[in-house]
């Protein structure tokens, strides 16, 4: 009786998961932006997707690093301009996202794998992914050309459609002014579908292969997800699914082999694709294994920095601030950082951060070696605040601790204010 129950449970679980999988294969691309409107200066996974998609359609040629900098900004604006979006503002809202999603693909696993491994890569559409890892300069140029061509074709197509669309809209606008907006939306969708359909025809074979790839990717992704969630029933299933997947693959390969015979001209391309499929499948598995091992995926490989300062400058300043004022309240640390910056800007002091910090007899922490203590996060934050324009000292270029100051000269300086243990002066 008990055995029966377990058997029944297993059967039900298998059935539901298989049907779930069956349906989910037909769900369109699962990767998508989050809800946020992305604006310049943003960092994180949305920006990685944005850059990847913009590179896919040939608008973005920089490094995919997860930081929305200037080159990404121009790419977004040009994209918005070419695809007739109402506002060319560099803000990536819902419309722009939809437009991007419909016109590009995003191989998330591929991108994150390269990022996590610190590899140089590109993500141009129409170029096999295998060629996009650690590409040579020539390969990049070639891929860029292909993407640029696709970009131009798409733009022409879009403009032609936009004209048609406008003509239709004008007619309808006369009849129904009130419902105009709704209809526009619908038309957009329809046009996009048409567009896609046309593309499908043109790139039938490529897309077929890609869809297969996607299906496989998704299957595997789900396998892994389920693997995490449920433990026992699932091993059996996995085996079944793997068998299925393998059967699918074999079937596909057979089909493709037949096609190859029929279409000898395109043989090579498909072989490449097959190889790519296999490779990608392997890559995906590896990437997913890694992802499950350490869930932390890199959100970006670059950082925003305030104009004029490098990470090393900030590090050096944090060292000085920490050596000089650990134990002081936060505002006192910002103040010390601000003094360093005020000195850099002042004509009577060296005009580099290092020059100011290492000036002989300028800072006690430098003279006694305390500058080489490892600074904490708070010191770094204080430095960032100071660099971003917060100056609690109101322009001071000197400060001293009245309890320990030995120089009588420093007492003669006009004092501005006291923060914590330090007196800040002109």
């Amino acid at each position, binding site marked *: 009786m008990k055995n029966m129950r377990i058997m029944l449970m297993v059967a039900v679980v298998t059935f539901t998961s298989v049907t779930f999988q069956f349906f989910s294969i037909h769900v369109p691309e699962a990767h998508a932006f989050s*809800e*946020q*409107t*992305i604006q310049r*200066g*943003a960092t*994180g996974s949305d920006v990685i997707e944005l850059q990847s998609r913009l590179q896919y359609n040939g608008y973005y*040629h*920089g*490094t995919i*690093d997860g*930081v929305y*900098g*200037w*080159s990404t900004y121009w790419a977004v*604006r040009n994209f918005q301009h070419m695809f007739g979006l109402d506002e060319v503002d560099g803000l990536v809202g819902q419309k722009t996202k939809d437009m991007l999603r419909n016109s590009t693909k995003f191989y998330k696993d591929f991108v994150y794998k390269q990022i996590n491994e610190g590899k*140089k890569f590109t993500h141009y559409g129409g170029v096999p992914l295998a060629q996009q890892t650690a590409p040579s300069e020539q390969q990049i140029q070639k891929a860029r050309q292909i993407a640029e061509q696709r970009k131009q074709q798409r733009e022409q197509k879009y403009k032609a459609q936009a004209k048609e669309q406008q003509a239709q809209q004008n007619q309808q606008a006369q009849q129904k002014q009130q419902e105009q907006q709704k209809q526009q939306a619908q038309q957009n969708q329809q046009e996009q579908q048409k567009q896609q359909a046309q593309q499908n025809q043109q790139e039938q074979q490529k897309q077929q292969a890609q869809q297969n790839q996607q299906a496989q990717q998704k299957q595997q992704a789900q396998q892994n997800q389920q693997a995490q969630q449920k433990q026992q029933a699932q091993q059996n299933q996995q085996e079944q699914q793997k068998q299925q997947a393998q059967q699918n693959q074999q079937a596909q390969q057979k089909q493709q082999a037949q096609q190859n015979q029929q279409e000898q001209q395109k043989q090579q391309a498909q072989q490449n694709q097959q190889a790519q499929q296999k490779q990608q499948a392997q890559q995906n598995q590896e990437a997913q294994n890694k992802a499950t091992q350490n869930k932390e995926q890199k959100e*970006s490989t*670059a*950082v*925003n*920095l*305030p*104009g*004029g300062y*490098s*990470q*090393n*400058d900030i*590090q*050096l300043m944090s060292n000085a601030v920490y050596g000089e004022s650990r134990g002081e*309240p*936060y*505002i006192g640390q*910002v103040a010390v950082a601000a003094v360093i910056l005020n000195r850099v*800007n002042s004509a009577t002091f060296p005009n*580099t951060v*290092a*020059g100011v*910090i*290492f000036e*002989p007899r300028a800072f006690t922490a430098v*003279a006694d*070696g305390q500058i*080489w203590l490892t600074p904490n996060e708070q010191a770094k934050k204080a430095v960032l*605040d100071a660099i*971003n*324009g*917060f*100056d*609690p000292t*109101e*322009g001071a270029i000197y400060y001293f601790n009245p309890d320990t100051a030995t120089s009588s000269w420093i007492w003669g*300086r*006009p*004092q*501005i*204010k*006291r923060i914590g243990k330090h007196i800040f*002066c002109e």
Partner: protein
Amino acid sequence: MIRGIFIGILSIAVIGSGYWGYKEHQEKNAVLIQAENNYQRAFHDLTYRVDQLHDRIGATLAMNSKQSLSPALADVWRITSEAQSDVGQLPLTLLPFNKTEELLAGISDFTYRAAVRDLEKEPLTDEEYKKLKTMYTKSEDIQNELRNVQHLVIENNLRWMDVELALASGQKQADNTIIDGFKTVEKNVEAYSESDFGASFTSMNKTGEGFDKLEGKEISKETAIKIAKTFVQNKVTDLKVTENGEGSSFGFYSVSMHDKENNTDIDMDLTKKGGHPVYLVQNRDIKENVISLNEASNNAREFLNDHGFEDLDLFESAQYDNIGVFSFVSIVDGVRIYPDSIRMKVALDDGQVIGLSARDYLAAHKKREIPKPNISKEEAAKRLNPSLEVQQDRLAIIINELGQEVLCYEFLGTINADTYRIFIDAENGMEEKIEKLKNPEPIFQEV
């Protein structure tokens, strides 16, 4: 008896020499640290100068007019010679450092000759532009490598004196990162990304220290507290007010508050005249990142509106971990007034404003009559470097090198992957300012 004296003398001698040894040791350490600091300064200065060099050469490439080209080349030459003097101060006698020195010498020669000759009569040839371009890419390679070494030096606490001592004592340490690091500089590897230093922007140049344009009456300490409370969104306790010291160029109150809910201190300065906020800063833990940068910028704008800062336009936004930092500038008749800038800091967990710095705004803001531009936008655009692809343009008021406010056409454009901001005087068509805008900097791989 004699033995007692002997022991006494001996122990005094021991103690004396011990003390002497200790003093010697201290002195030696002090000298070591001083020498070390000199080396560190020379090295960090060198990296900074190479950063600057790359940046200035880039800006030179974007220039068009001869009037600005000569001083720009002279500036590059100045930076090069400073960098050369930094190299000269480093203990690199035994290390291969030729390529960097060669590059610096090459740039120095070229820029000196170009800067002193009359570019009106003898403009830069295509060949020379090409040369300038290769210098630009080469300096980037070296810049990246130097930064990497600099990162290693800071990260691992490497001391130059250790290298010196190691070299002096004849022990060759194979794993000495400073030596190895400099060897990699010489390998001249391909640059792994576009990154640059970015010139500091208009608003960073502090002008008019005194806040003489402020409006309003003198406020009392009590009013200062009242005003301060309106700038914080949570309940605050332990409010303390202090007045400015005598050395300050303007009168202000400093208010410190404690926010119990977040267990953090909030600090703020207000001008005595009119009670305008100079800055406000709080430092609290922001664990997760819930709202978008866009939403945060809207919050910041609303906050500014609520506090009477109107007609402002967002012009910079950036995310640092879980904090959004924004710069706003005044807009008058569609013209951006760069001197009137305000910086905001917003927490990305709940969207609260956690920082504001209105110093520049208070110093520069006033009623302005915007003059009519003398030359048209098209005419101004003709002054641009032909290889610049203009992406955006607008009118703006900036403070020029002489500290005057001037109306300019602002062009944002790209040359290859780099973005430049170029200001052309709307009065006479002069190139007022050319800057290469900062690209994101790659995070250094942990080595």
